[in-house]
């Protein structure tokens, strides 16, 4: 059987030739993403800002404006209504009320009983309310989880490799997460706790990719002690190229299937991870490797420590 070779044997692509172009592009996009998030903001779900969401399926499609008007009559605040999955299911979001922490769940009760009365055959399939207090804590928890995950990872890489690799990995992560955040700001897709799980998955995947490439760079630095750093990076990237492509393709394939066939509730989560995988693949080549050059990694970085070890074992 003739096997499929996604990447031909012995490629010799000069990745590093475009490293400055790529770095400028990446920097621009990262800055643009952060500015976008700063100016336009993120569409934070009730998990992070508090409020109420009710999802209902109606007997037939309803006029959104009319529905909004009727809910307005309840005096529960201005509703944001979106289609959800199909043209008969809507997600109704209401702002967090002023007053006591308990006011939030009372609004859900009100809307829950109101809809079937007003629209015969309407079925409420989900209702959520998060008070201001809880949402603040959830946001803090999410931020804490991401921050500690990144710090923990950087420390490990620093410990296993050299400090340049730790910083390089952090820069790569920062790049990937900023870009996905920028995407969410641009599309104004809702960011809820599920999306935080997606960010953590992106962090995990991006890291996986980066570490595999770093691992090969470290191996080659030990093997080819005299090779110039840029050439060595190019060589390592070419060696791992086939693996990078096959793995990324498998994961993206799996995610694309989940995006197309998976439940609607998972759409945002899956899209974020898919995008993150794509960006992560790019950045493992064009951010994590060039970063090592800028951070001043020298071909003898690993040599020195091994010489020292050798010296200890062999006193002259």
């Amino acid at each position: 059987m003739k096997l499929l070779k996604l990447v031909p044997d012995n490629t010799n692509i000069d990745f590093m030739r475009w490293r400055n172009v790529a770095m400028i592009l990446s920097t621009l996009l990262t800055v643009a993403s952060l500015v976008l998030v700063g100016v336009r903001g993120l569409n934070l779900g009730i998990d992070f800002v508090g409020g109420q969401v009710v999802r209902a399926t109606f007997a037939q499609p309803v006029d959104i404006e009319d529905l909004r008007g009727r809910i307005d009559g309840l005096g529960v605040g201005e509703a944001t209504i979106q289609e959800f999955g199909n043209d008969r299911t809507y997600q109704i979001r209401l702002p967090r009320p002023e007053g006591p922490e308990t006011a939030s769940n009372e609004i859900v009760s009100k809307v829950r009983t109101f809809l079937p009365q007003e629209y015969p055959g309407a079925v409420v399939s989900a209702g959520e309310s998060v008070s201001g207090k809880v949402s603040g804590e959830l946001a803090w928890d999410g931020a804490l989880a991401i921050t500690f995950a990144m710090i923990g990872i950087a420390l490990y890489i620093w410990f296993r490799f050299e400090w340049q690799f730790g910083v390089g990995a952090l820069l790569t992560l920062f790049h990937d997460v900023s870009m996905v955040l920028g995407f969410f700001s641009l599309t104004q897709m809702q960011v809820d706790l599920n999306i935080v799980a997606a960010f953590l998955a992106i962090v995990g995947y991006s890291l996986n990719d980066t570490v595999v490439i770093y691992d090969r760079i470290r191996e080659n630095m030990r093997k080819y002690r005299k090779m110039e750093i840029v050439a060595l990076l190019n060589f390592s990237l070419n060696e791992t190229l086939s693996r990078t492509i096959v793995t990324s393709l498998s994961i993206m394939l799996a995610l694309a299937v989940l995006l197309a066939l998976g439940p609607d509730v998972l759409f945002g989560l899956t899209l974020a991870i898919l995008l993150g995988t794509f960006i992560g693949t790019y950045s493992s080549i064009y951010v994590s490797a060039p970063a090592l050059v800028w951070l001043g990694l020298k071909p003898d970085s690993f040599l020195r420590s091994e010489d020292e070890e050798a010296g200890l074992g062999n006193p002259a």
Partner: protein
Amino acid sequence: MLDFPKWKVWAVSLAILLGIVLAVPSLFPKATVEAWPSWAPKAQINLGLDIAGGSQLLLEADVADAAKQRLAAMEDQVTTELRRGEPRIQIGDVSTSGGRLSFVVRDPTQLDMAFERMRTLTQPVGLTGARDWEVSTVDGNRIVLTPTASGAETALRNSLTVARDVVRRRIDPGGTKEITVINQGARRIFVQVPGVEDPEALKALIGQTARLEFKLVALDADPAQVAAGRAPPGAQILQMADGTGPIAVQRRVMVSGEQLVDAKQSFDQDGRPVVSITFNAAGARRFGRVTQENVQKPFAIILDDKVLSAPNINEPILGGQAQISGNFTVESANALAVSLASGKLPVKLNVIEERTVSAELGADSIEAGTIASVFATLAVIGLMIVTYGRFGVYASLALLVNAFLILAVMALFNATLTLPGIAGFVLTIGAAVDANVLINERIREELRRGRKMLDALETGYKEASTAIFDANITNTIAAALMLFFGSGPIRGFAVVLLIGIITSVFTAVNFTRMLVSLWVKSKRPRTINI
């Protein structure tokens, strides 16, 4: 490559077999599994509420209410102690304003004695010698009891433990449903009830403190004064539960819900729903005496500071059985009966977070999730086989075994699978490929470099393992930190990821190595196509 010892083949096969056996129950509906013979494994993965449908509430203790109740209880203790103890100490001007309890000792010579007796009412908190109340004297004749912060904290913690059990009894009096009621931190209770799609009844049940009290109506009260909210000495103004206005009742609790042993919904002689209650021996005696002494006087039945009704005592009630009347429906009488039978909540609980998902929506989600998982796995398997041939088949087998192992471990630890967990599952399937890809690519490379087949296989596995190790350790760190610091969906995701990392490394490295080794040993191929 040939050195894969027999014992290891047995160990790996056994582990995988065990995994598959443990995973099987999770693939069938619960009812089917329960009908299996007793020796069959039955542990299943818990489905999260977002998948199975149900309600989830986060309750928080009302700290202000807790403080108020604690103060009221202290007032009771103080008056009883000074009135009952020897010698009696006359007090006056009792006040509970500003969160403190203060009173004037009528006879100044008794001040020191009163002070000492107050000291005996306080309890030590912790090991530092601090007490739950601070007793002090002001103006030479007034004693002030101030709750200490650590005392209030301890009291809140204790009442939350009691509250947790009360909530459990109220939601599930029979103790048969699979509900989760756990304390979260110092002032919260987390409640999860699968299958309940309308949380309103749940909230009504929990929202009731169910503090039941019987007090005599203050007959000497002037109606005009009562309407203005002013109570005569020794009395207090309460609202009627049906909204018919204020009523004056004596402050003194004659009988309270603490002396109940049972409560049931029933009907009175006119067929109206009521709640029948049964007192314990002490309660029955007390109820009998009070009703004997106050025949033809109205007796107020008070629930959570609202007067349900104030019927006249027609005759002494001696058997320890009584009826609570009010404007009940069968449902509300039943709810009150459940609340009373489960005991009063020691502290008011507020709902600060609520999530409900209907079972249909959950079923749709899990169906879509399952279909997507199957097709995602098939797509990856297809790609593996066209890329690596026989080694792709081995990698695919490893993927399938990996999926079973994840299910098995989750069932074993009774872990909960949530929607983000499904995403984690699919991601793990994708990422599990990576280890196989690393190994296979490395074998290709070594062959290209001119190594002999066996040597290339050996080196491929050996050299790839460093990268696999580093990549998975970093992910383990990330998953562990998410599990530790994250909440809700983040943890659901992290659990699956963490389990998936362990099982995928095992299957990708050990299992495929075993398959390759067995193949090489039995067929003795001269070349390999990879």
